[in-house]
């Protein structure tokens, strides 16, 4: 008597969620027609942070690579935009994927160095490399040295002639990056590599014993994260129109905030960065005027969540209610075949 | 009155229950052996008694006081020292430093560096060597000496003959009478039935987390033991 097996990842909530998600995305895509200019700028920030958070979560939450140096790739992407737009005369929008490529390219030698360090030392090693990039760009006088440079008006007009058109295009890019980064993580986790990652996260020796090539999977994830982070970098400075080494390679803006977002939302869950991003921007709306106090509150909140609920806010919700919006777990369903 | 009275002790690793209601007594100065096959729960029992695994307070009563579930460093201060399985010497420390670690408990009595070196003279010669540079038998002597330095009233020995040559095992067990002479009760956990029967006043046999047999070695027949050991 044979049993019938089906392997499913979808859940009832996830299917219902899928429909809601599509409607939500359609609404967001239509943003330029119903959002104000200020709202659109905020949306670009939110989208950028979400994409960065997804990438950091992919690194730390799934591949066990706790990087404190993602600002390296954000800054590289930002500078790639200025090099491409000003010196190569490329359309700034074309520069966005190229910035991703540039960051991924730099990530290869970076990985060769920092992958020699394990665990916590890897974290500080990535930070050192990011400092090296920052200090190096500060020495390049063609890029404005330490004080940085602005994107010339004619390059900016290359995006679109009118300000409204530019805002809309940048908005769509941010939306695409946020959705793309989330989709990338989701897609990756559903592939064989994703299974490998989950296995590595759960037990590195066990993963090795079933023949999963950790080093290679981790390397791929690191390069992929650099690619997306580089694109976000180009987008961020396309909307800021001005770059400097301090802003481009800021550990607080591009890594500390991102870490806090992921930790608060939930490490190792795709929903975590989304929840964390919402909490982050809500808190900012109330506390941003307080300057340093805002960072103190955020830091304390992250520490408290890490200690009291290491699975994050989303983890708390998911465990209580059993919801999963992005199911990546495979569930085995066994049915006894009916006897004739 | 028993020095150690274990009543209905259960222990689990996560969802896996390893001990089911163990009852066991050790009187002051007595030598007791626990025998049993791999996975019978012998080491788990020692972990629960020494505080490395959770236990109900009343399940472990020492000197009339419930101590189940106390932290390992509290339990050893009460006078229960463990010679852990696999010896577990500190690799960064010399032989003498390993022995001195045993004295961190701060209990005084018969056992000092001097008396331990008298018990195992070879250790005095190797006192400045890193603990892990010694032979297996000598390492076992360090592990026993280290536990004695705590001047325990109850010494727990986990598989001290494991992986050693018969002649070395004989040397190690030759130390037991000297340990008993100091008034210390000894509990040895052994897979080697013959060795256990020779040294112990009383024997407990564990099987799948239960006590399957107990008694004085002279009163037990080989058939009884085989059945209790292998469940056949």
């Amino acid at each position, binding site marked *: 008597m044979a049993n019938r097996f089906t392997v499913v990842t979808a859940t009832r909530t996830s299917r219902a969620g899928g429909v809601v998600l599509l409607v939500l995305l359609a609404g967001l895509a239509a943003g330029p027609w119903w959002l104000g200019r200020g709202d659109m700028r905020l949306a670009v920030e939110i989208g950028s942070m979400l994409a960065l958070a997804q990438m950091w979560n992919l690194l730390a939450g799934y591949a066990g690579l*706790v990087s*404190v140096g993602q600002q390296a790739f954000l800054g590289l992407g930002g500078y790639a935009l200025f090099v491409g737009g000003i010196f190569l005369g490329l359309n700034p929008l074309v520069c966005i994927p190229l910035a991703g490529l540039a960051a991924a390219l730099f990530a290869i030698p970076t990985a*060769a*160095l920092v992958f*020699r*360090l394990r*665990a*916590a*030392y890897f*974290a*500080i*090693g990535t*930070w*050192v490399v990011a*400092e*090296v990039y920052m*200090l*190096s760009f*500060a020495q390049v006088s063609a890029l404005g040295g*330490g004080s940085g440079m602005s994107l010339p008006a004619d390059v900016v007009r290359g995006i679109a002639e009118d300000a409204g058109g530019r805002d809309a295009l940048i908005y769509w890019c941010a939306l695409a990056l946020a959705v793309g980064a989330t989709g990338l993580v989701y897609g990756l986790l559903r592939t064989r590599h994703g299974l490998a990652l989950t296995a590595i996260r759960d037990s590195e020796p066990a993963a090795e014993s079933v023949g999963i090539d950790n080093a290679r999977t981790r390397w791929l994830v690191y390069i992929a994260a650099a690619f997306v982070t580089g694109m976000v970098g180009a987008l961020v400075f396309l909307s800021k129109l001005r770059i400097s080494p301090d802003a481009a390679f800021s*550990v607080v803006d591009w890594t*500390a905030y991102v*870490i806090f977002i992921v930790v608060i939302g939930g*490490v190792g869950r795709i929903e975590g960065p989304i929840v964390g991003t919402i909490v982050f921007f809500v808190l900012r709306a109330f506390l941003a005027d307080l*300057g*340093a*106090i805002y*960072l*103190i509150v955020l*830091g*304390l909140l*992250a*520490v408290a969540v*890490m*200690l009291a609920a*290491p699975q994050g806010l989303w983890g708390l919700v998911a465990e209580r209610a059993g919801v999963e919006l992005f199911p990546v777990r495979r569930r085995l369903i066994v049915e006894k075949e009916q006897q004739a | 009155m028993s020095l150690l009275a274990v009543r209905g002790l259960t222990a689990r690793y996560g969802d896996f229950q390893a001990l089911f209601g163990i009852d066991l007594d050790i009187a002051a100065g007595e030598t007791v052996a626990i025998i049993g096959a791999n996975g019978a729960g012998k080491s788990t029992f020692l972990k629960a008694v*020494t505080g*490395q695994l959770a236990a109900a307070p009343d399940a472990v009563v020492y000197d009339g006081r419930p101590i189940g579930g106390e*932290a*390992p*460093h509290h339990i*050893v*201060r009460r006078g229960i*020292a*463990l010679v*852990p399985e696999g010896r*577990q010497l*500190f*690799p*960064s*420390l010399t032989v003498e*430093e390993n022995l001195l*670690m*045993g004295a*961190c*408990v*701060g209990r005084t009595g018969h056992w000092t560096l001097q008396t331990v070196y008298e018990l195992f003279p070879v250790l005095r010669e190797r006192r400045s060597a*890193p603990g892990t540079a010694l032979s297996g038998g000598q390492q076992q002597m360090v592990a026993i000496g*280290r536990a004695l330095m*705590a001047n325990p009233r109850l010494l727990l020995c986990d598989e001290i003959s494991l992986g050693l040559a018969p002649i070395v095992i004989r040397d190690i067990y030759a130390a037991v009478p000297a340990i008993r002479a100091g008034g210390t009760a000894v509990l040895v956990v052994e897979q080697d039935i013959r060795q256990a029967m020779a040294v112990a006043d009383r024997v407990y046999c564990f099987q799948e987390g239960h006590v399957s047999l107990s008694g004085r070695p002279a009163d037990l027949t080989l058939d009884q033991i085989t059945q209790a050991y292998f469940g056949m």
Partner: protein
Amino acid sequence: MEWVNAVVQGVMLGGLFALFATGLSLIFGVMRLVNLAHGDLIVLAAFLGVAVVEGLGLHPLVTLVIVVPAMALLGYGLQRGLLNLTLGGDILPPLLVTFGLSIVIQNVLLETFSADTRRLQAGALETASIELAGGISIGWLPLIVLLLAVAVIGGLQLVFYRTKIGRIFRATSDNPAVARLMGVNHRHVFALAMALALAVCAVAGILMAIRTNFTPTIGPARLLFAFEAVIIGGLGSLWGTLAGGIILGVAQAIGAQIHPGVQILAGHIAFLAVLAVRPQGLFPRLRD
């Protein structure tokens, strides 16, 4: 001759880096904890020095009498109350909690002391120097820092290899679970190690405050210097950490001699070069 001078000054600077690094090396050695707030704790000690100097009018070096025990107490409490909660198999909690702590300390200092650049005034000591042949002069202050670094590391070496608590530190580092079977309360031992590490941070912070300008946000850079000295020297060896600090100091001084803008960069590059060629460091402990 100016290159020789650069190397000499670099060696002196290396003493300060070695002091930064010693605490980091010590707590990693005892409890495998990498404290990302290490640099900020050094800066916190510097600001405690500022507060004591301004409040009591003491000479900066005398503030050590107050700041060192205060930081040691803080270290004990921090470990017992917070960091012990993060220890376990997972690397995320200790990293993220100390990273959060780093951001919190920086911003508390910003709120309390503002972003102004500070320095502790040590009077005549700042300019006093010894003239050597060939126009090279060694400042008394940098020399004192270097000698103090040697003394601190020598003292820690004695504590680790000649005292009971040092033995307990090493045993706990080897295997905390077995150390507990010897009656050692590992949580207390970890807290003592952190107290010792922050006492060293206090010395480093006060000396840094006398030698250089500082602001509330320079902590992470000190963490990186400390980390680089530890890795260059090789994990697990305090004398290696001293050597690592000196190599880093010399690299920075040579960089500064080439162009003032590349001082820090030259140090980072020296570190990356060591990482590329000899990832185990130059003087690793042979037995681990």
